[in-house]
């Protein structure tokens, strides 16, 4: 007997079910197929090529009218199913009822629409079916600007398609990197770079507040208050299973329609298949598992035993030129190990995640040829112990090669600047090498590269090696740490030359071997980025040592010390009273006068920090940065105000300098002193910058030391006015910020580049003015009291929760 089978939804999942049925037993069922869309089954995933113009709708139709007719499927397209009466076993369509013996619900998903003001304006489109695609194509014909909300698979395919059709596209994405479900940050960085190359603007960590427009969308308003003009808004923030019909009918529905491994719902004659279902807590958004479900459902309907199991899935993005692949589980879960490979010259990133002796996840960008092989290792749970060392190089390569440490230099374009002092770019150097300069000396003589401060020597040597190969014997240089092959100086130069403005950019373009650096390299890279790109790069507190992140020095017992600023060593009764009150209130065990002319409150609990800061702030006291790689103290003597020998206002100059320099980040700490006469009571002759006042003006000395090394300052310049003393000091510190290796105090840096080189730079008034301006620009962000800002987030300093009671039960 032929049973009546009714199917709601003619999508990719139900299409596959029908194919299996007609293939195995064409006479078993009399099929009626409803579809809300006025058409039958087409390959939905190919809508993106239709949008971008690479394919037409006709090319992506899976079942045409003729196919349905041939297989005796009664089609009711363009008709919504509005109800199911389970008692009478009928399906209620808009144009009438039809009775069933077996029923399949295959309603797919509905796009999620974020509930913001303006979401219903004309010009706001979701991306799900052919009508949406056609609407986007039509809008794109007018040109103009499009904003795509959502930087996942769908959003990016929409963005690429619209850009292809000539629109100016901005993608607004809530998370920190694109496609965060499928990609890690490194691959997300490369994807972003490729999309930006084709003119798409990407805004991450951006949240949509409203869509604005008068009768038609005009702009998208972001949470921060910024507006992005938009003639078209595509909302692609996610999907949710289309379950309305099922829940109205009283079937069991969680997030999706609940089914067992035979795809049966809580009603034994009703089945569900596709994106509308939930199985064992899983939802589905890609076709591979839906095809498995379709096969199981067809077998079940034909009375064959079969069970659906959830398998790992692999993702690709259908944007030509963005080659990415991700599979398995590459994030969550303990017991895991990473293998990372980067080839900056080819823009390749690969990461494998291993658990025990098995591969559990893979993310790849740039070269995804081995994707399917890795995917099969993941799916099959193959033991990889044997080939672990060479696994990342793929199936073709099982002998073991390592990443080329020179690839970062090889990847540089010819116009990239290598020697900053003399403005020499890569092309000039490689030309010199090609025409016979085969050692460092010859390159120096011919091009002047690395002939001044010498910090680019490493890069010039690498260029020699890249160009000459084994004919050049490379001297061994100390890399920053085990995560990379470059020295600090090389990293600094490359950050400037390649305009690397984010940590991910550094990791990828400079071939880092770890996922996100380590405690040695990350603080250095964080400093280099913020010193070179104060406008574009945002400081990352998580890349700082605890003292700088907590804005207090950690003590051996885990408590902290608090040192407020005393400008130039001057204080007053009100400040001292506030310090005394704080010492009482927070039971401070030790109050000490420091070697830097101020007061240290030691032994403060982490939780109390924001509160003591707030109290000190009230009395006008701010952070003394006694913890930072930045300006510490400016020691002064009493000078002309009181001392019978004083020649200039040393206290006043010290205070001015401290007020200009405070809050800045430097490669290592910076300490200053100003003495009123050569008797030098402020010990200025052993500071990073020490100024001695004399009758004729100011003697500015630099590069002193009185810590682990002891060294007298060297005279940088003698100037007649206070303003010039300040200008030279600021210019010197900015030059140090731009060039020194992280954790080199000025005396170490000057020993490397030579005082003559420093003088040569600073004597040029144009360069001096540039340095002062660059410092000021950076200070417009950093000359702020971090205590005042941190005190506002006091809860961050408290434990997350107290479980002492629960755990004891």
């Amino acid at each position, binding site marked *: 007997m032929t049973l009546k089978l009714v199917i709601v939804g003619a999508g990719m999942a139900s299409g596959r079910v029908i194919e299996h049925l007609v293939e195995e037993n064409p006479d078993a069922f009399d099929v009626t197929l409803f579809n809300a869309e006025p058409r039958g089954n087409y390959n939905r995933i190919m809508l993106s090529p239709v949008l971008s113009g690479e394919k037409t709708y006709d090319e992506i139709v899976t079942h045409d009218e003729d196919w349905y007719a041939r297989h005796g499927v009664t089609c009711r397209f363009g008709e919504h199913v509005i109800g199911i009466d389970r008692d009478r076993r009928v399906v209620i369509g808009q144009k009438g009822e039809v009775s069933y013996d077996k029923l399949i619900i295959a309603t797919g998903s509905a796009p999620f629409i974020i509930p913001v003001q303006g979401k219903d304006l004309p010009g706001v489109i979701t991306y799900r079916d052919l009508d949406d695609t056609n609407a986007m194509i039509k809008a794109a014909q007018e040109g103009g600007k499009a904003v795509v909300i959502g930087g996942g698979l769908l959003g990016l395919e929409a963005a690429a398609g619209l850009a292809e059709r000539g629109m100016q596209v901005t993608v607004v994405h809530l*998370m920190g990197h694109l496609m*965060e479900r499928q990609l890690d*940050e490194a691959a997300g960085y490369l994807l972003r770079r490729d999309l930006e190359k084709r003119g798409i603007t990407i805004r991450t960590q951006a949240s949509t507040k409203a869509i604005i427009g008068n009768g038609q969308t005009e702009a998208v308003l972001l949470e921060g208050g910024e507006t992005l003009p938009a003639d078209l808004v595509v909302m692609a923030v996610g999907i949710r299973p289309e379950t309305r019909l099922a829940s109205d009918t009283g079937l069991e529905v969680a997030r999706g329609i609940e089914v067992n491994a035979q795809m049966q719902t809580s009603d034994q004659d009703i089945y569900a298949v596709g994106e509308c279902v939930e199985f064992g807590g899983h939802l589905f958004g890609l076709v591979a598992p839906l095809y498995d479900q379709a096969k199981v459902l067809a077998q079940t309907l034909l009375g064959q035993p079969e069970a659906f199991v959830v398998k790992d899935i692999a993702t690709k993005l259908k944007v030509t030129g963005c080659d990415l692949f991700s599979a398995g589980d590459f994030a*969550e879960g303990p017991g895991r*190990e990473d293998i990372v490979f980067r080839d900056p010259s080819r823009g390749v990133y690969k990461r494998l995640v291993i658990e025990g002796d098995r591969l559990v996840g893979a993310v790849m960008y740039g070269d995804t040829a081995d994707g399917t092989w890795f995917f099969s290792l993941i799916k099959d749970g193959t033991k990889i112990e044997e080939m672990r060392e060479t696994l990342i190089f793929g199936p073709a390569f099982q002998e073991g090669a390592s990443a080329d440490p020179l690839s970062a230099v090889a990847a540089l374009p010819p116009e990239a600047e290598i020697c900053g002092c003399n403005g020499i770019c890569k092309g000039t150097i490689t030309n010199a090498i090609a025409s016979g300069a085969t050692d460092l000396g010859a390159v120096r003589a011919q091009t002047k590269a690395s002939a001044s401060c010498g910090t680019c020597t490493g890069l010039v040597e690498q260029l020699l090696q890249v160009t000459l190969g084994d004919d050049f014997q490379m001297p061994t240089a100390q890399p920053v740490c085990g995560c990379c092959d470059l020295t600090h100086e090389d990293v600094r130069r490359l950050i400037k030359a390649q305009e690397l403005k984010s940590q991910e950019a550094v990791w990828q373009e400079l071939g880092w071997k770890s996922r996100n650096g380590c*405690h040695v390299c990350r603080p250095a890279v964080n400093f280099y980025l913020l010193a070179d790109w104060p406008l574009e790069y945002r400081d990352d507190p998580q890349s700082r040592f605890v003292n700088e992140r907590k804005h207090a020095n*950690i003590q051996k017992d885990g408590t902290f010390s608090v040192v407020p600023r005393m400008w130039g060593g001057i204080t007053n009764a009100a400040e001292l009273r506030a310090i005394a009150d704080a010492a009482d209130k927070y039971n401070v065990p030790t109050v000490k006068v420091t070697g830097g002319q101020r007061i240290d409150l030691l032994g403060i609990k982490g939780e109390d920090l924001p509160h003591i800061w707030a109290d000190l702030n009230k009395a006008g006291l701010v952070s003394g940065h006694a913890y930072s790689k930045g300006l510490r103290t400016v020691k002064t003597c009493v000078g002309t105000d009181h001392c019978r020998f004083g020649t200039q206002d040393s206290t006043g100059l010290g205070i001015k300098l401290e007020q200009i320099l405070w809050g800045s980040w430097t490669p290592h700490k910076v300490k200053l002193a100003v003495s009123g006469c050569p008797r030098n009571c402020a010990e200025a002759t052993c500071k990073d910058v020490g100024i001695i006042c004399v009758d004729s003006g100011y003697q500015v000395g630099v590069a002193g030391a009185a810590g682990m090394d002891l060294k007298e300052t060297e005279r940088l310049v003698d100037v007649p006015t206070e303003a010039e003393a300040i200008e030279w000091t600021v210019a010197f510190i900015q030059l140090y910020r731009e060039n020194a290796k992280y954790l080199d105090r000025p005396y170490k840096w000057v020993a490397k580049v030579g005082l003559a080189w420093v003088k040569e730079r600073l004597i040029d008034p144009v360069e001096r003015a540039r340095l002062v301006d660059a410092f000021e620009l950076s200070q417009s962000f950093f000359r702020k009291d971090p205590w005042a800002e941190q005190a506002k987030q006091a809860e961050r300093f408290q*434990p997350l929760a107290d479980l002492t009671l629960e*755990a004891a039960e």
Partner: protein
Amino acid sequence: MSWIDICAIDDIPLRGARKLKTALGCVAVFRTGEEEVFAASDTCPHKGGPLSEGIVHGQSVTCPLHNWVFDLNSGHAQGEDGRIATYPARTEAGRVLIDVARLATRSAA
């Protein structure tokens, strides 16, 4: 297992940690990726440094006092003879869950 909801994932800074008071002493909850968390003892076996204040990199943390590096999966210190206790933690729908049963059984042992 007895999972309890501790906080939203964003309450812990990315590549950072927060601490949790328990009967066994402080436990640090680390966030290494957008959705990846680990829980382990907050106390360094070297000289008691607070690991929740360390630099988090890859799936490791570096102690802020003398730079011992701990693997958050196994709790082992790299190249040192030391280990910290680790506890089950996971994320679900943007929330961080931790297994309190484990914290209790450990204390009983």
